[in-house]
């Protein structure tokens, strides 16, 4: 085998199905499990009557407070898992293997949001939110529950996991040559040396694990675009949202095809083709996060500038924006080892978002929202108008 793709025939299937000797070689059950764990965590964050801080933190860690075994999930299969959400938050090889302090800080930030939901929002379940006061606020006929700054912790956790868990693991871990080509992976893949007890090579499996963070919860995992957007609350959902914006129609198929082609390239040993597909995925997945960050900022701005602005709707949009902005630090500029924005740049965006006055989102001005949209859209290949939908 060699690296020159023009001489290697790549046998690309119609759907994400790969077999060896009649058995499927595709496996990503751990990614599916973490998506399901995250789903249960975020829905339990809104269970005002049933949830406790310790239960929510156990869902995040899949451990009790002293590190022992815990069974926090209603789904027994998740309880039997040795995996957890937390262990894969800010845990990619490329970004965090030698950056333990930042990784720990990010993991703990999720815990502080989870705790804040219980300590700040839960006690104010039946209080009207106001500047500086946590409580409930109407968003049309929906009810949102916000902290004293107007932020919804459940939205922050959900949207930030898209970056810190799914995107970071996908773009900066499993699609990285540092992981795909680690150890003897190339040699083993070329010689079809299989992982013990399985039908796949290590490299095949790593690539599938990246795929699993996007489509692991799909009802049809091999052909997930048929029901795009309905499988989870994370990347699948927002790929669906972006796909449904005319300006970005086709992005879902592009990403799916890149996954499929890259996987087929691994089977064929065409590693340059594989890496080209990884870069496509990096760019497009990063764009989803950038587009949605700008989308929610602009949506909030439009409402804020209207007559009698609906603050509940604004805060809901901005809480989603907060999470997508947080997720920007886990994106990846194609052809580089860098995110579109570093952790400290992201922090400065968030500080600006909450910095127009002492009460955070209650004081936010349309001018600040515009400036944030400008700065966030700048390095991407989309315009604010396109992202605004």
């Amino acid at each position: 085998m060699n690296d020159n793709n023009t001489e290697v025939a790549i046998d690309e299937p119609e759907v994400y199905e790969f077999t060896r000797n009649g058995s499927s070689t595709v496996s990503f059950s751990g990614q599916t499990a973490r998506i399901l764990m995250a789903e249960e965590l975020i829905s339990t964050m809104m269970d005002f009557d049933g949830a406790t801080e310790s239960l929510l933190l156990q869902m995040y860690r899949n451990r009790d407070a002293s590190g022992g075994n815990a069974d926090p999930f209603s789904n027994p299969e998740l309880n039997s898992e040795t995996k957890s959400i937390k262990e894969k938050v800010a845990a990619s090889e490329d970004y965090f293997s030698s950056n333990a302090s930042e990784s720990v800080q990010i993991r703990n930030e999720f815990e502080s949001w989870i705790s804040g939901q219980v300590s700040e929002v839960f006690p104010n379940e039946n209080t009207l939110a106001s500047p500086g006061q946590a409580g409930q606020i109407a968003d049309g006929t929906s009810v949102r529950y916000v902290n004293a700054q107007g932020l919804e912790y459940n939205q922050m956790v959900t949207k930030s996991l898209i970056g810190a868990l799914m995107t970071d693991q996908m773009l900066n871990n499993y699609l990285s040559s540092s992981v795909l080509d680690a150890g003897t992976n190339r040699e083993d893949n070329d010689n079809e040396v299989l992982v013990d007890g399985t039908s796949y090579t290590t490299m095949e499996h790593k690539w599938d694990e990246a795929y699993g963070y996007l489509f692991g919860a799909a009802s049809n995992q091999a052909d997930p675009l048929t029901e795009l957007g309905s499988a989870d609350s994370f990347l699948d959902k927002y790929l669906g949202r972006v796909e449904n914006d005319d300006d970005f129609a086709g992005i879902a198929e592009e990403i799916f095809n890149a996954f499929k082609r890259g996987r087929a390239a691994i089977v064929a040993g065409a590693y340059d083709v594989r890496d080209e597909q990884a870069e496509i995925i990096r760019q497009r997945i990063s764009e989803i996060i950038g587009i949605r960050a700008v989308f929610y900022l602009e949506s909030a701005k439009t409402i804020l500038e209207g007559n009698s602005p609906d603050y509940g709707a604004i805060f809901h949009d901005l809480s989603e924006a907060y999470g997508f902005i947080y997720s920007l630090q886990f994106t990846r500029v194609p052809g580089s080892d860098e995110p579109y924005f570093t952790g400290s740049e992201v922090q400065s965006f968030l500080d600006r978002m909450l910095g127009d006055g002492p009460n955070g989102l209650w004081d936010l001005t349309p001018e600040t929202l515009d400036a944030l949209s400008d700065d966030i859209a700048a390095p991407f290949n989309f315009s604010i108008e396109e992202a605004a939908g």
Partner: protein
Amino acid sequence: MKRYSILTLLIFSTAVLMHGCTDDGPLGPDPDDFDRSAILTNWADNLIVPAYQNFVADAEALESAAADFSANPAADELLALRNAFETAYLSFQKVSMYEIGPAMQVGAQGINLRNYLNSYPSDTAQIVENVSLNDINLDLPSQLDAQGFPALDYLLYGAAGSEAEILALYSEGADAPLYRSYLQTLSARIAGLAGNVLNAWETGYRDEFTDNSGNGANASIDMMVNDYIFYYEKWLRAGKVGIPAGVFSGTPLPTHVEALYHGSFSRQLALEALSAVQDFFNGNHVNGTGSGESLNSYLDYLDSRRDGSQLSVLINSQFESARSELESLQQNFADQVENDNIRMLNAYDELQKNVVFMKVDMLQALNISVDYVDADGD
């Protein structure tokens, strides 16, 4: 699913807009030359304020009937209360589109009169809990679906299996006084909130509204027309017809009809709402048979046309098409969507056509921008 429909609508709207431009005749009069204050005066004095006056009177009659029933929870009093409920609920359909000024300031930030009075489906578990607690802050956003007409609909028609059992609920057992009390609380709250809005119109907002006769996003006419189309699109077309028909969810939702527990009232409410929006369009006075300056006369002044036809005629004719579709439906929309949802979808389609005429063609002719956005909904 919601995004698909909005997207489809946008594509359709854009196509209509582009098509309309090429078919337009020579440029007519400038929209800004029209005497906008004449429209505002007609709206305020002959439509909005009289409609609120009628509604407040009907809501006070409802409050009074609830008090009578509480004093004597017997069959005759229940019948009188149910009749008062129907009258007030119909009367509400004539003010529900006027979410401007005081109606947007009745409650906590972001909550308007309509949300307090007509959020459905109601949360029956919350209603039952509220009955037992006997002390609840109905200003809270989480209480929107435990009050207003939908909650009364449940308490008067759905809280027990038969009329006799409903009477027993209010007359027998330890909870009966609590049920009677909650009925009174809810009725009084409807009358109180509506009274506050009317009072604000009568003590200053009427002049503020009619004086603000310029053009631009914050002018009364721009705001009112936006609120009107928003109401038509979201509360009439979607809320009363589209959502129960499953237009946004993919499957019919019979439990999402207006007046679910009454059982034969949803069609009448929808027709009343449709008449109210058509009367508003034509400037028809709420009391009597007079009419005055209106969107209809404004469009005619501008000689607004679409494919050669007068836009005002097209819109009125489309209201009539929607009305005849609605009239062909069963009285109970829950039965309708369960038995023959196609007819419900047909009614939705006819209502939708006027969204395009009004939101695209009319707004363009009047040089008014849409000031609302579709929420994400998650």
